[in-house]
Structure formats: C-alpha cells, structure tokens
C-alpha cells in the first residue's frame, strides 16, 4: 500500500509539472522561445487567487477561474508587449529578457504583497478517499481530477478544432503556416493565453495544496518545468505531460527511501544532465 500511496503523491506533483510544461513546450514549439517568465505567471495565479479569496469571495471555484483568466491575459500581455518585438532577433535576446522579467516579477510581488508567506484560505469541498490502506485527500483528488479535465480539454482543442490545427501548423513551420492563411498572431496569442492560464491554475492549486503563497514560490518550478520540457522533448505536449509524471514519480519514490538523502529538487538537475547527455531530443522529441 505504500506504493499506491506514493503513487498518489506522484500524480499530484506530476499534475503540477504537466500544467506548467504545457505552456512552456507549446510556446517553444511555435516561437522557439524559452519562456522562463512562465513561472512568474504561476506565482501570479497564486497571488490573484489569494487576492480574490481575501477580498471577493472565499469560494475556491470563484478564485480559480478568475485567477486563470488573469494569468492568461498576463501571458498574452507578455507576448504582445515583449516577445512580439523580439521574434526576429537572435534567440538569446528573448531568453535574457524572459529571465529579467521573471526576476522583476518576483520583486514586484514582494513589493506589493510583502516578503512573507501567506496562507491560502480557500473554501471548497470535493471527493476524497480514506481507507486504511490509501488516503487521498480532497485537495489531492481535486488536483488530479482538474488536471485530467484540463488535459482532456487541451487534447480536444489541439486535435479537433481549427485553432488546434493552426497550432500544429505553426509549430511545424510558422512561415508556411502564415503563407497558408493561418492567422499566426492569433494562434500565438491564444497559445500564450491557454498556456499561461494553465500555469496560473498550477499556481492556485499548489497554493491550496501547501497553504502558502510567497514571492519566490515559482523559483523551483521554473527550472523543474524546463527539465520536464527537455525530458519530454521540446515542442511535444504529450512528451511534456509524460515527462512531468515521470519526474514526479522518480522524486517521490526516491524521497520515500530513508537512506536517500539527496535533496529532491536536485534530482531534476540530474535528470536534465542525463537527458542532455544521452537523449537530447527527449522522450518524444522530434
């Protein structure tokens, strides 16, 4: 039963990674930009969610969609206000700008909301399992179910809608897609919107799960999400999701061993090194 219990934790953790990686890998797939500031959107989602809980409604189901909306819009803003002007520049320019933006965002949150960790007082009820052998709390159930719903919705969008078709076209060859009449600008903007909304959702869910919001909460997620992108293969959403779950599984299983004292967060780095050394394309990369 220990295995099953640990599997639950891995699923929850993997869900967060999956939600984060989707935006990152989609953006890379189309624009070939490493969007480091994505983790800043994760934190933004958490803070917006907190703000709503404290000032509008303490109902989680009100806070979540609003936080996702705000995050989505912020993502579009970053594209239209920053990356848009860097699309033809060498790749290092948007990369450095993204890093700078991420750092600036963390400082902004600190200045506005203070450096303290804050509790996340959300009210909600959800399914839960409590047996002698397995405990799945309502928060854990919520994260797993919600992520599954989001992933299903995403699958539907990518494979069954015109928007999704435009996406796939853009990520294969953006110039050709544009020449074929795809509204590249719209596709990219929607791409940013959805990816950022999911990142915001991840932020809200983690704020709920750990009951804390603080300016640097995105720092670890920032580089771990990248490890997942590399492991899954740049541009592959399926790869990203699978890689996210895999990394979470490895972290959880190794963490449960009493003798394993390597810090959990460093495992991701090791995975990154090995992937780049032995299979730089990632699991599902093209």
């Amino acid at each position, binding site marked *: 039963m220990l295995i099953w219990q640990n599997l639950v934790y891995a699923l929850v953790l993997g869900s967060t990674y999956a939600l984060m990686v989707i935006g990152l890998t989609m953006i890379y797939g189309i624009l070939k930009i490493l969007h480091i500031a994505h983790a800043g959107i994760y934190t933004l989602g958490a803070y917006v969610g907190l703000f709503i809980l404290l000032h509008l409604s303490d109902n989680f189901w009100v806070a979540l969609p609003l936080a996702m909306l705000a995050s989505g819009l912020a993502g579009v803003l970053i594209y239209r206000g920053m990356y848009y002007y860097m699309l033809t520049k060498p790749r290092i320019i948007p990369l450095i700008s993204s890093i700078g933006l991420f750092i600036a965002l963390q400082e902004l949150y600190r200045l506005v909301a203070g*450096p303290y960790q804050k509790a996340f007082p959300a009210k909600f009820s959800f399914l839960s399992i409590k047996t002698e052998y397995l405990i799945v709390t309502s928060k854990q159930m919520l994260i797993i179910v919600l992520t599954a719903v989001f992933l299903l919705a995403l699958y539907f969008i990518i494979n069954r809608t015109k928007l999704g078709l435009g996406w796939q076209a853009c990520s294969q060859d953006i110039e050709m897609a544009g020449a074929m009449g795809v509204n590249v600008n719209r596709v990219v903007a929607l791409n940013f919107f959805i990816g950022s909304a999911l990142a915001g959702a991840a932020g809200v869910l983690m704020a709920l799960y750990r009951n804390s919001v603080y300016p640097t909460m995105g720092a670890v997620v920032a580089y771990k999400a990248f490890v997942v992108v590399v492991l899954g293969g740049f541009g592959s959403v399926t790869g990203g999701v699978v890689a996210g779950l895999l990394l979470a599984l490895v972290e959880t299983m190794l963490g449960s061993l009493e003798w394993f004292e390597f810090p959990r967060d460093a495992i991701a780095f090791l995975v990154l090194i090995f992937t780049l050394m032995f299979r730089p394309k990632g699991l599902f990369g093209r």
Partner: protein
Amino acid sequence: MKLKVAVVGISLILLFLAAGLALQEETIKIGFFAPLTGFAAADGMSALRGAQIAVDFINEAGGINGKKIELIYYDDACKADEAAAIARKLIERDKVVIGISGSYSTPTRAAAAIFQEAGVPMISAYAIHPSIILTGELIFRVGLGAPVEGIAGAVLAVEKLGAQRIAILTMDNDFGVALSEWFKRKIEEINSKRVEAGMAAKQVEIVYEKRYPLGETEFRELLTAIKAKEPELIWATAYFHEAANIVSQARELGIEVPIIGQEGYDSPKFIELGGPATEGTIIVTDLNRDSDREIVRRFLEEYEKRTGIPADMVGASAFDAVQVAAYAIKVGGTEAEAIAEAINGIKDFEEAVTGPFYYFKDREAVRPVEIQIVKGGEFHYFMTFTDPEVITPPAL
C-alpha cells in the same frame, strides 16, 4: 566691513554646525541586522520590532546614563555575505558600540567573526549554533543554544512524554543539524543510564531518521514512510514554513503522535500556515506567553499594540539582547572589554522577557527553558525546565 560680516557669519554657522554635531554625538549607537526580506522576513521583522521596543522603553526611561540609544539596522536577507558586509559597515562607518544579530545562525556566524576581529562586542539574539560564541571573547548569546535546546527536547520527549520509539526529521542546515545532534546525544546518554540501572528494555529507539533541505515543502512520502515505522513521537527540526507543512501533512496522513518542534516553530506564521493541524504541537523555546512576570506582559502588550499580531520568541530575544547590551553599557561604559566583563558578571537579570537570566556561562545566558504547546490557535504554557542539569550549557 564686508569681510568682518563674512567672518562673523561663517563662524556662527560653524558654531551651530559644531553644536549640532556635538548634540548628535549624544546617542549611543547599537548596531542591528536581521532578515527583513527573503524567506525569513517574518522572523527578521519580528526581531527588529522587538529590538525597537526595547530601545523605546529604555529611551523613554531616560536612556543610558542620560544618553539616548540609537538603533542602526540593516537587512541581511538571511545571507552570510550580506551579514558580513553589514558587520563591516556597522563597525567602520556607523561606529557602533555593540552589535546585535537578529538573524539566523549562518549569517550570524559570518558577522561574529568580523565583530570579534574588529574588537567590537556582538550579541546573538536567537541564533543557536554553538560555534557562534566560540568565535571569541566578545561574542555572546542571549537566546537558547542548540545544545540546551536539543537536550531539553530529549528530556521532554523521553522522560516527560515517555516516548520510546522516536522518528527524527532534520532540516539540513546549521540550525536543524545542531539541534538534532544534541537531541540524539542526550538520548544516548539517557539510554546508557537506563542500561546501567538495569532497565535495558526501556531504551529509546530511533526508528527513523532523515535529513531534508531547507525550503522543502513536500513531506508526504517521508511521512508515509515514518507512519509505517509506528513511532510514538516525532522530533522535527524546521523553520516555521517547513514546520507548517510537516505538521499539516503529517496530520493529513493520519499521523496522530506528538510532534516536537523547537524555536523555529515559534512564530504566529507557523499557526497561520499550518492551520488547525498545528493544534497540540509542542515546542522547545524560551518565551512563555502565559508568564505573569511584569516585563513579559509589558513586552507582549506593546508588541501586539504595534503590530496587531502576537509576539514570538524571535521578537522577545531581540528585545532581551538590547536590554542586556544597554545594561552592560550602563554598568561598563562603551569600551569593548568593559562591556564584555559587565555581561559576564550578570546575575539574576529580571529585565529579560525570555529570562530571568540567572548568569552567563561561557558567554551564553543560562535561564529557564520554556515548553509551549499550541492550544486554540495560540501558543500556551506547557511546562518549564529549570533543572540545572537540563538548562546549563554543556562544555563544548
């Protein structure tokens, strides 16, 4: 004529300037540093406020021998290199008479080295690492040190709470490791005594032990493994954020045995972030919120009045550090050696919130160890250790 006016005018200006400067020099400068930003900001701000309350109390009562105290403070963001730079600034530029660390062990160690080398005394308000006061003759500590805290924790766990199977979770930094090390040493000592007394079956067993990195927020797989070992008690060293996660996740998993924390838990943030799961957590600290000593009540009221939140050990320790510094300056003057001598000569110092300080041994305050428990969302009295065997810092 114009020349005479100019000369008189300039002389007057210079005179006023000199008078102004002379008036300015009438304050006694005390240096202070704490993490005002970063993950430890809640503790740093609390320490600063505690120190400021002490400064205000003293100045309201007339200052030290007629002179007011001026607290010169900087933010070290809980980083050793920042603290070292701040120490140099306080010594060379601000020319403080004494320095007080309102910060954690790692930055405090760095600063202590600088203060000792420059010949300026420094008091560690609450940083616990043993090596801090070993830095030199001018470095003192008013807070609990790791040895006493770990030893008291072991006596609490084994002799008062009667646990024989204990799981240990250690935060992997100066603070967490030192605490667990002394906890385990005392347990070994207790075990030896039990064997000698023919009670070998009553030995304490450490059924699980693991380190985790500072900043970790996910403990569920560790706790699941701990749960499988069926301990009677968990000793977990942590700061308030990690502690909140450990305790809330443990309860979520259905672990119901007592969890013993230390001064790192001693913050309203622990209760805020950990939520209702924190009920019943017992901690080893030195602030008794239920004390009826006058200085405690005065401090607690003033702190809550100024901040709107209840005070914590960190604020109380910073307050006490200023109190001790002011006393030493009053008695000994501003020379470093005299200040050190004054502190070493302290006996039954009642004006400390985390006191009374019975005396200073090897530059560390010896006083009661308070055990507090979370009840009704607040820290309350559980018990006090005054037994010299527990509260006297061991020889290092």
